[in-house]
């Protein structure tokens, strides 16, 4: 897999660290235990397209929002996680 970092260009995926589902951007406000349980542990785990968080640890260190096909490993779209989070506000 090769991931196109918005800052650094297309790089081998070994330069990136995988965190998990991009739902981790949506940290629940307040102290609702059920919402936090869902946030930390529950995953949709889809086949096909999955939105994920990767960090370019061996490059610019930016957190990236990557849409990837988990069946074919095709990278579909890469944005800065910060931009995705701000757009959702």
């Amino acid at each position: 897999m090769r991931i196109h970092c918005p800052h650094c260009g297309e790089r081998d995926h070994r330069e990136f660290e995988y965190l998990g589902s991009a739902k981790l951007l949506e940290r629940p406000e307040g102290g609702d235990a059920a919402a936090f349980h869902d946030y930390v542990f529950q995953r949709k785990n889809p086949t096909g397209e999955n939105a994920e968080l990767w960090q370019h640890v061996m490059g610019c260190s930016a957190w990236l929002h990557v849409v990837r096909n988990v069946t074919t490993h095709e990278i579909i779209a890469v944005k800065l996680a910060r931009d995705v989070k701000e757009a959702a506000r």
Partner: protein
Amino acid sequence: MHYSVLQILKNGLTGNKGWKPVWRNPEPKKSYDIVIIGGGGHGLSTAYYLAKTYGIRNIAVLEKGYLGGGNVGRNTTIVRANYLLDGNLEFYSHSLKLWENLEQELNYNVMLSQRGCLLLAHNDGQFDDLAWRGNANLATGDDAVLMSADDVRAYTPYLNFDDARFPIRGGLLQRTGGTARHDAVAWGYARGADMRGVDLIQNCEVTGFRIEGGKIKGVETSRGYIGAGKVGMSVAGRTSQVAEMAGLRLPIESHVLQAFVTEAVKPVIDTVISFGMGHFYISQSDKGGLVFGGDIDGYNSYSQRGNLPMVEHVAEAAMALMPMIGKARMLRSWGGIVDMSMDGSPIIDKTPIEGLFLNGGWCYGGFKATPAAGAAFAHLMATGEKAAWATKFNLNRFETGHVIDDEGTGARPNLH
């Protein structure tokens, strides 16, 4: 047919014409008392114990492909009981006891070989950790031998003891660990279940659940609707998809785990060895191939093949541990899709839907659990209670804080 030396002699002298198909290939009935989804090792073993121990004979196992065609045929065949935490300790201990009697139980040669399983340590911290683990295993009644570097040198003299980066500090040996013939385990359980009247239905994909008033009524399949009193999901790798059809969301991600085998060579490794740096493990099959594997690739995947960086990483680990392996040619590599749970431990539990049960989240430890997982799942489905040695694999443990994180890495499935 009961297999015996007499049968082998008789059939050997009569042109081997007396052997019969090992299981039937029945059409699905309209309904069953219990339907198990997934004809892999766990599904077949569940059906076997339901029929054998609990006398429930009106059972179907639904398999979308062929029996034993999933992860039970894709693993590195290691059997061991050297976990660390409560929950895992008593469960795998019980599983090993079932393994030790499995061939007599099934009247089927699963080629269990208790050739030992050695975990290596490469620094003082790791060695202390192995001592802790070994004590936990001894306290559970399992075997554990803490070995000094010299002990390891005598046991496996061909390892690279003086590697500059990862010298071998010592090891923890479980003499009762080893390997088994993975396909034979699935076939043995399938035969035992079929002999007791269980319908093993292949090429039958479950496409939906029928749920009324919060209670399971049956399953929609590619071969029509099948009614069921109870339904058990045993579909590791695809658990999230099957559960989603029942409206459930689970603490599971699917990842790809690769395995490798070299060309057959003369006997060289007579045990199972785990490198303590980089999660590499190796044994030699009875055919002579060196069978080895490493970590999961590290990102969600439903592709049953891995990427090259992990191939390279595993090859590097192999060369660091055992330089002689560089002389062998790699024959094949393949991938299996594993349920990575959020704490690295499995789930055997009821679901919020009455009559629907879940067995999944096995990460890369499912094969060694095959007998006990089936026995525990059968016990749960038949009695509604958890078996005494499988009380902690609860679906709600993530809510209550009772996670079983043997690796201590937190809710990061790609790190377990």
